[in-house]
């Protein structure tokens, strides 16, 4: 069991069966001290949220590889808000849209949907682990300090 300070829910959203990247992400993050609750492939928005609620995870890592990410991820942040997880970190990565598109446009689209960070397939997972720890630590700080008013959503 990894350092309980960092707990994330991981899964591949929608009707997506791409399982390899999912196994790789888990195998890289865990030794780096991140506790990964892995839901595997074909996970619905509510299944992600259920798992986060149950396990108290600080972040949800959504993969979408097969191209329907644009459809499957729509409304995810809203659903989190409805289910009382307004502030949970949302990462998304993979081949998020249909076809080869400029990443900057894809990133903007998913940020608009309320994802905190958006990743290409070629992202370095060690760097993701660092970001994750930093983002989670920052949130914890913010939440422990009621007085400060801070923008929770990460800018860059």
């Amino acid at each position, binding site marked *: 069991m990894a350092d309980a300070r960092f707990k994330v829910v991981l899964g591949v959203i929608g009707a997506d069966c791409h*399982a390899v990247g999912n196994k790789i992400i888990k195998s890289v993050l865990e030794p780096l001290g991140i506790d990964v609750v892995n839901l595997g492939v074909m996970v619905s928005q509510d299944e992600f949220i259920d798992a986060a609620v149950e396990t108290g995870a600080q972040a949800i890592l959504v993969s979408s590889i097969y191209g*329907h990410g644009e459809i499957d991820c729509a409304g995810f942040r809203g659903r989190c808000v409805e289910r009382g997880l307004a502030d949970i970190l949302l990462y998304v990565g993979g081949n998020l849209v249909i076809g080869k598109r400029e990443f900057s446009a894809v990133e903007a689209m998913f940020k608009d949907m309320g994802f905190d960070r958006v990743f290409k397939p070629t992202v370095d997972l060690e760097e993701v682990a660092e970001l994750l720890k930093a983002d989670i630590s920052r949130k914890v700080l913010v939440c422990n300090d009621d007085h400060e008013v801070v923008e929770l959503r990460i800018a860059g």
Partner: protein
Amino acid sequence: MTEPSSHEIENRKLDRGTYEHERDTVLQTWHTGKDVDFAKGVRRHHEMPDSKKFSVALANAEAAHKTLLQPRAGVALIREQIQLLNDLSPHCDVLPTTVDAYTRHNRYEEAQAGIDRSRAAGTSLLNGFPPVNHGVEGCERLVDNVSKPIQVRHGTPDARLMAEITLASGFSSFEGGGISYNIPYSKNVPLARSIRHWQYCDRLVGRYEEEGVSINREPFGPLTGTLVPPFVSHAVALIEGLLALEQGVKCITLGYGQAGNLSQDVAAIRSLRQLGHHYFREFGHDDYALSTVFHQWMGGFPEIEARAYSVIALGAAAAKFGGATKIIVKTPHEASGVPTMEANRAGLQATEQMINMIGDQGYLETDEIAQEMALIEREVHAVMDKVIDLGQGDIARGAVRAFEAGVMDIPFAPASVNAGRLTPVRDNNGAIRVFDQGSIPLPADVIAFHKEKIAERAAAEGRDASFKMVVDDVRAISASKLIGRPN
């Protein structure tokens, strides 16, 4: 149909009554089912010119030792799909229609939303063509507006309605199988169920054959496309071939996905053909046409297009040296997303150039290839013997029990019915070997051979073989290597 268990499933031809009765239900699972008219479908096929028949294209290729090229292609809307296929048509021999992932899971409502959103967006937001939603009329329009044989390519555990609709519309080949379209493609579908559903599909093809219409069937060879040892996918292909023939299928194409090591790939595709004949005859079939299909690299691709071309080229060379009847072609966009027509065409052109250049050359014969062939054959026999044994002679029942027992086990598969204990890794020449056999019943000397080959690599890299090595191998091709060696 009630849920079959491993005790009830059997490799026996569905009787007419069972099939017809089931059909009534199947056709009601989505509103487009009501338009399926078998007799009209048969007439369509009879009226179709030979140039649009898959079975004819394959037979001609077999006879002339030609290798057919086939792209993947599927977009949400009919008109766009027609346009796409006609743009690709001059550059390939047979056409696909790749089905979207919602349809693959019978989520026709989501597919419909995808169609509607695509229409609104003016671009396909689906990763394939949704044939069930478009129905017989839409599929007929597609078939009528292309000039080459056309196949349904998908990944659907329960493809019964899709098969009824597409075959009645004039598609003359149907990919998939009860194992190969379950284990790599789904999470919670019981294997007995998907096998049973595919017996239905095969029986439907058999019904066409009874009416003199030959429909090609193609079990999906590459499975998860990731470090799958040849014997693993061969066993699946052979079982699905046998299941299909039992239901009256006559034209069958066995598939294999490139492993990356040239000798292993050439050996694999050559042995697949031999093993096909061996098992089909052993099970009493003699009236069938066998062909093979080679899938260019099915794992993660390099992002840089120039690099992708070399992966494509190596696959083309292996396929041609191996004597495959057909190649499923990748594109330089593979790592990024569903390819544009242009990227798809580029993949076809690169492949054609390579197979032409290799096709003009001599037969590739090396000791290594001969040894790999002998190895694959022994491994396949070991697994098949056990499967037959577990099924007490019944290959359907045997397959279900084999997966339960981990006797058959597909690396990296998402299906919960898959044991996931077989762990493959590359040896020092890049051939895929068995690192952890899980419960696969390979002979002791074969296992010793695998261990020795892996030890050779471990020594060369100065590290122990481990799951880290496997992960490195998974990422290797994208990082421009075949083997995931430490830097």
